[in-house]
Structures are given as C-alpha cells and as structure tokens.
C-alpha cells in the first residue's frame, strides 16, 4: 500500500505540473513586497526538493528580516555564514554584501534559475526584488593528467568537469582579448552551459557561424557529456570516422585554436570538442610538438605504418593464406601450414574469433576495477594465447597477427579515431575471407571513397592530401620544425590579411 501512496503522491505532483506551470519557465510572475507570500511561492516551486533550503534570518537590533534560498550542496556554506548570514544578524549591512551580486531582479523566474545554478537568493522584507549572489561550492575534482591522452613530455593538466576551470586553463594559455568565448545553454532540464571558443582573426567567421547555427537547434532533455553534443552536430552520423575531435587536454585545444579552429566546451564534461577535424589530425599527438622534430616525424611514420596494420594485417593474413598461397615464401608457407595443421576452423573464422576475443578482453579491461586489470591480462594473454595454441584450437600466426593489430590500434593518439579504425577491421576481414586480396582492394577502395568524400564543418576530411595543398602537407607526413611552421603560419596569415 505504501507503494500506492507513492504513486498517488507522484500523481499529485504531476497534476500540479499540468495545472500550475513551473515558475522557472518565465511566465511573468514577479515578487511581491510580502515576504511570506514570496516564501510560499518559492516553496511551492521547490516542492519535494529536499536539498533546497529556505532560511528566515532576523536582525538582532531591529526587526529587519531576510529570506535566503539556496541549494544545499551547490554552495560554499562557510562563505555563506561569514559574508551573508553574519552581517545580516549583526545588522552591519542592509542590502550590501561583500560579495558579487550576480542578479537584481523582481522576476521569480530569474531567482529560480539562479538558485538552480547554485546561487543564493536573498529576499528582503518589504521589498519586491531579489538579489542573487554566487558562492560556488559544488564538489570539484582536482586537475589530473588526462587518462585518455597521456604524454611523457608536455603539460600534464587536463580538463575537469567544471567549465569555469576548463576555461581558465585555456585562458591562462592565451592571454589575449582575441580569445572569444560565447556562452549558450543546452538541455531542457540540464541547462548545461556550452562555450564556443575561438580566436578572433584566426577562425573564419563562417566557421564560427556554422558552429553557432548547428548548436542552436539542438533540443534534448539532458546533456551528460560533450559526446551528446557531438552526435548532434557532426556531418555524417553513419561514418565510423569521428568528424569532431574530442580532447581532454587544454594544450591541444589551444594548439587547434591557433590553427583557426573552433572549440566547444561543455559544462560537466572534461572533453572539449574541436571542429573541423581531419583524418590527419587524428594521427597527430600533442606530444609531436613537444619533442624534437626528427623524432616526431619518425613517430608519425610509425603511426602511418601501424594504422595500415590496424586495418589490414588480419585481412591480409587471411586473404593470402586462403587465396594466394603462392605469394608466401616457401619456408614461411610451410611453417604456416604446419601451425594450421591441427586447427579445425578456416582461417577467416579463426581470425574473427581471436579478434572478437581480443575486443572482449579490451572491453573487460576498461570495465574491470583497476585491481583486476592484471588478472585479466594474465588470463587473456597466457590462457587464451598459450593454451589455445597448444590445444590446437587456433594457430600461432593468427595470435601473432591479432596481437600486432591490437598494438597497432593503440598507436593512434586519438581515442575516438582509434575506435573507428578498430571497427573497420571486421568488414575488411569478412571481405578478405570471401574474396581474398580482391576483397581487400574493394574494401580499401570503399574506405578511401568514403574518407575522401567526408566533410567536417566544410573541410574535406582527407585534406590536405586530397585535395592536395603543399603548404599544409608539411605538417602531415613530416612534423616541420616549430620555427618553420610558425614562420609559415605567420606568412599565410599575412597573405590572408592582404587578401581581405
């Protein structure tokens, strides 16, 4: 029966919402000079909100009294007591506080909105307006090294869940008034603050407009992470390739801003979005720009090599061993044949099996508590790898190939990009298993067609390789020395300025 009661309660709540609309939606309600009425109005608004506190404070000397309303866990209580409550009681101030007053309004909707954002609303008796002061005190994570993009050399701070902190991290790196920040709010209920960040004169006006116009029509109840926004504004939702970069690193955002890109920060998400993104930026790590350029170039080449491995290694193995055995050197063909002697499955199935197991291991590794990580790697690596080969379920070359592929995917610096690449392996494997090298060529052609057609915010995904642009080329296959790159970008900006 208790359960029934609860349902009833909920119903009554729902009834209210139908008959009496919530005040946070601005319907022109204003405060009266009767503080009791104001209190009951707010209390009704925050019905069943146990964390909303309404406090009546009376001055010690005269009978002035105030009403302060706030959400318990969003504000810093100590500051509240010290700078709001204490002056009130001791009658030092009447309506001035040594705090920044964020809003002065008579509208109820304003007060409600501010309270929900973690401000303190102060209503004075016999006055029909409300003051709100910001005393933020919600829980905050300390700055940590981003777990998804670790570097050895380079800044180690990463974004956190507070947009204000994240903005300060960017601002501290770009001390210029050219850095523009535009706020907007998304989410019917979450009212998440979104910041569009760009460098004036660096980012094209059209790009900024495009970002604004794509963000504006978004309608959803809650924004939990920038990932929610990303799906709304990307060009091609059915592509395995991410057309928007997400990063946890402020230095990456700043670097991209300097290249004229636009970043979108989302409150409550440590991942900033950067548009436009290209295929090649997916292969560039921030560390490339912190280590010396010959090494960085070499590392880039390693990545180019291994991204090919990540897509092609298992399909090539399957295609060559099942369709084109004449391509393998004699000694190798004999040892592969030897290792496959006892294996009951065809090579495609074998490779698919191991790939799926590897993906499962990976997924398990992410989900498992950290303490269990080692156990999983032992079970995964030793038991599956060693025992399955010895038992003759799978052949050793496949395990080797899949391991190489697994490692290859991790050389890709951007997590979301690596995910897309991982996904492509499976259709390629099926193509290789059914049509051999012909299938691989078809599949690769398909990928290339798709990638060269893809756009991210007006920029072709495969640029500057296709369409070809020499000046930008220098930062794709080699990492130019920083001084050369700086000179180049300086020059191109000058030319642009003259052109305008």
């Amino acid at each position: 029966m208790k359960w029934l009661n609860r349902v009833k309660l909920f119903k009554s709540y729902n009834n209210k919402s139908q008959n009496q609309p919530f005040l946070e939606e601005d319907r022109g309600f204003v405060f009266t000079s009767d503080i009791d009425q104001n209190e009951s109005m707010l209390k009704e608004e925050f019905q069943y909100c146990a964390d909303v506190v309404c406090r009546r404070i009376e001055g010690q000397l005269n009978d002035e009294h105030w009403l302060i309303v706030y959400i318990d866990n969003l504000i810093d209580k100590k500051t509240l007591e010290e700078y709001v409550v204490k002056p009130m009681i001791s009658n030092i101030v009447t309506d001035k506080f040594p705090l920044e007053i964020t809003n002065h309004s008579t509208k109820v909707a304003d007060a409600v909105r501010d309270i929900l954002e973690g401000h303190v609303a102060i209503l004075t008796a016999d006055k029909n307006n409300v003051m709100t002061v910001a005393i933020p005190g919600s829980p905050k994570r300390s700055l940590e090294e981003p777990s998804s993009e670790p570097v050895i050399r380079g800044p180690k701070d990463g974004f956190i869940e507070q947009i204000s902190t994240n903005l300060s991290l960017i601002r501290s790196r770009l001390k210029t008034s050219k850095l523009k920040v535009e706020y907007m709010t998304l989410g019917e209920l979450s009212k998440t603050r979104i910041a569009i960040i760009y460098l004036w004169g660096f980012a094209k006006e059209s790009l900024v407009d495009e970002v604004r116009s794509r963000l504006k029509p978004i309608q959803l109840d809650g924004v939990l992470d920038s990932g929610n926004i990303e799906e709304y504004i990307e060009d091609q939702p059915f592509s395995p390739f991410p057309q928007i970069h997400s990063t946890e690193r402020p230095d990456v955002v700043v670097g991209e801003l300097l290249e004229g890109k636009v970043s979108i920060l989302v409150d409550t998400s440590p991942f900033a979005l950067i548009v436009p993104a290209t295929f090649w930026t997916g292969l560039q790590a921030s560390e490339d720009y912190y280590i010396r350029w010959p090494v960085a170039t070499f590392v880039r080449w390693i990545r180019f090599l291994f991204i090919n491995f990540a897509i092609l290694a298992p399909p090539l193995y399957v295609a060559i061993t099942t369709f084109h055995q004449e391509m393998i050197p004699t000694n190798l063909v004999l040892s592969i044949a030897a290792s496959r002697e006892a294996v009951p499955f065809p090579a495609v199935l074998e490779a698919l099996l191991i790939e799926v197991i590897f993906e499962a291991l990976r997924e398990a590794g992410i989900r498992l508590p950290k303490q269990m990580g080692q156990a999983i790697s032992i079970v995964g690596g030793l038991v599956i790898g060693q025992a399955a080969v010895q038992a003759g379920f799978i052949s050793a070359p496949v395990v080797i190939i899949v391991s190489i592929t697994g490692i290859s995917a991790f050389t890709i610096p951007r997590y979301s990009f690596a995910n897309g690449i991982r996904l492509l392996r499976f259709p390629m494997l099926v193509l290789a298993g059914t049509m051999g090298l012909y299938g691989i060529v078809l599949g690769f052609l398909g990928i290339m067609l798709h990638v060269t057609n893809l756009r991210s915010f007006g920029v072709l995904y495969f640029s500057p390789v296709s369409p070809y642009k020499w000046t930008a080329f220098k930062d794709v296959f080699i990492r130019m020395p920083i001084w050369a790159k700086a000179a180049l970008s300086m020059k191109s900006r000058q030319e642009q300025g003259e052109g305008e």
Partner: protein
Amino acid sequence: MKLLKYSLLLTMLVISGCWDRTEINDLAFVMGTALDLTDDGNILCTLQVAIPSAYSGGSSGGGGGMQEKHFIISAEGKNGNDIHRLLQKESSRRLFFSHRSIVLISERLAKHGIQDTLDIFTHDPRNRLKTYIMLVKGGDAKTILQMKYPLKQIPIEAVKEIEGSGDDLAVTLRDFYISLLTEGLNPVIGVIEPAINVNEMQRQASFRFTGAAAFKNLKLSGLLDERETLGYMWVTDKLKFSRLTAKLPEGNGEVGIMLTHADRKIITQIQQESVKFKIVLDGQGSLVENNSSLNISEPKDLKIMKEALEDASKRLVEDILFKIQKKYKVDCVGFGQEVYKNNPELWTTLKDKWEGQFPETDIQVEVNLTIKGAGMVNSTLELQEKENDE
C-alpha cells in the same frame, strides 16, 4: 537507388566470393618434380611433397628430428594432364605447384625429346615460370628427389639454393622458353648428378652440379662439363664471379684469380653472305693463389701471370666453342641472334641454313684481364723464406 546499389554490392560478395578459397592446410606443397622416361615410352612423373606437420615449431620439433619432412608420389602417363590427374588421386590434399623449386629431367627423356612434357608447364597458370629446370646426368631423375641433404629440411630446396647462388648455370623455365623462342639461340640448362659418397661412417647420398646440357629442337644434343660451363657462362654473359687458374709457362707453378667482374662483347662482322664473330671478354679480379716462384710485386712477373691467365681463359672459351660448333653443332651461345640483331634481313636468308653454316663460322676470342689486387701477401711464402735465407 541506394538499395539497389547495396544489394548489388552484396550479390558481388555472394557470387564472386569463396569459390577458390582453400585453407593452407588443405594443400600439398609440391617441392620438386622429376620426369623420367619409362621403358614403354611413357613419362614417369615423381613429386616431392612437403609434410608441413614435420615443421611444427623449432622447439617442439627437437625430438622429431628423425621424422620425414617430405614424401614422394609418382604416376605414369602419356601426357602431363593425365599424369596430373593420376597424381592427384594419390594425394588427399590438393597438389599445389606454386612453391615448386625445380623440375628435373632425366638424360634419357631429354634424348628422347621433351616437347610433350614441357607443354603443360606453359599452359597451366598454377606453374611458376621461375622454377628451375635441370637435367639429371646418368640414372633416373627421381633419385635426386629421394636423396637426403643435411642442411635443408626439404632436400630439393638445397638444389634451389645452389642454383640461386650464381656459381652455376641457373636456368628457369622462363629462361628456357625465352631462349627456345628466340631467333638463333638454342636453350641450355644446368646439369645435376647424383653423387653417392661411399663413406662407411656415414652413408649419405648427395648431388653435385656438373655443368650444362645443350638442347636442339627440344632434344638433348650434348653435355658440357664444369669447365666448359664456366666458359659458356662467360661467353653468354651469365658469369658474375668465378675462379680461374692457369699454369705458368715459367716459374713452375700455378696462379689463381678470383673474378669479381666479367663482361663479354660479341662483335659481328658481316661480309656479303659470310659472317664472322669476335668475342671480347673482359674480366676483373684479384689474385688469390700463387704457387709459383714468381714475385707479384714485380711488374714483369705480374705481366707473365696476367698473360698466362688470359691464355688459359682464351683456351677455356675456345674449347667450348669448338665443342658446340664442331661436336654438337648447336648454337647455344646465340650467334644467330647476334646476326638477327645486327642485320635482320640477312638473318631471314641465313635462318634456314644456319644449322649447317654455324659449325663453319669463324669465331675469334680475345680476353682482357685486369688484376686488381694481389691478396694479402705480396709474394709467395716460399719466396719469402728464400729471401730470408739469402
């Protein structure tokens, strides 16, 4: 439209896929083929097939050293296609010829003519034209396949390796067909001979490369021995490196040189109907052996050595030319081809009578050797001792 496109793509997957898919462990890798002529005129084809399981892992295979790494199947038939069908019946796995390294032909079959046997190699795309073709001197070709070789798991791979080393005449099926179809050139292939080392401690059958075999009209016309093969390779510009020795006219000894560069030029002199050739051979190498009392550091002595070596080389080449001209009457160096290149019109008239004219053709040989180095010791050990005594 989009649906149509995707369904077309999917049909492609279903229709074109899988039909020639063969797992690697469903293949029998043929490593070598031996072709023999049986007494009743049939061809006996013997295949050496690798046993992959014998290869499994270096570590686990330690105990299984005695396990056979290959087995042999054979079939007899009139033509290649029949033989192939019969051979396939002997193997549970599909015979796979792409990794075959060598085709061996017995001397008897070669004398009988190989036009019937070789045709299947040209038509069947599963055959690799980079397969070496060799003649087995004396005995059956299949004996080579049955032999063991300690350095290689598949014995026939050793033959391939020796062929590939460049020391001996290495002729692939492709080379064979090219020279067969070239105007005025007759093919030559390498010769292998089973050599039984009668060593009581370790009775081991082995093989040896012993020169070359010249073909005319797809029939064996004669064999060249090792020394002649060396000359032949030089004349045909196939020599990359070799060792030459010469007996010295004075000084009572022999001198040896290691050739590092060898070059040849054939100068064709055409006068009316008669053709004359001049072969200019260039060689470069360093002295590796000097058993004589001559002193290398003496320019005079060095000149004697050089001339002796040049003479020896000239004799070497003249011997082979004599053999192919007068004895075998087969133009396997390609003098006819030189005529064809220099004067195609003349060749059309000469073509038919070339077989008769070639043995009478005048061929001159000139050898120029350059001795680049004298090795580590500038004169012989004996000489040093004598000098010390004095």
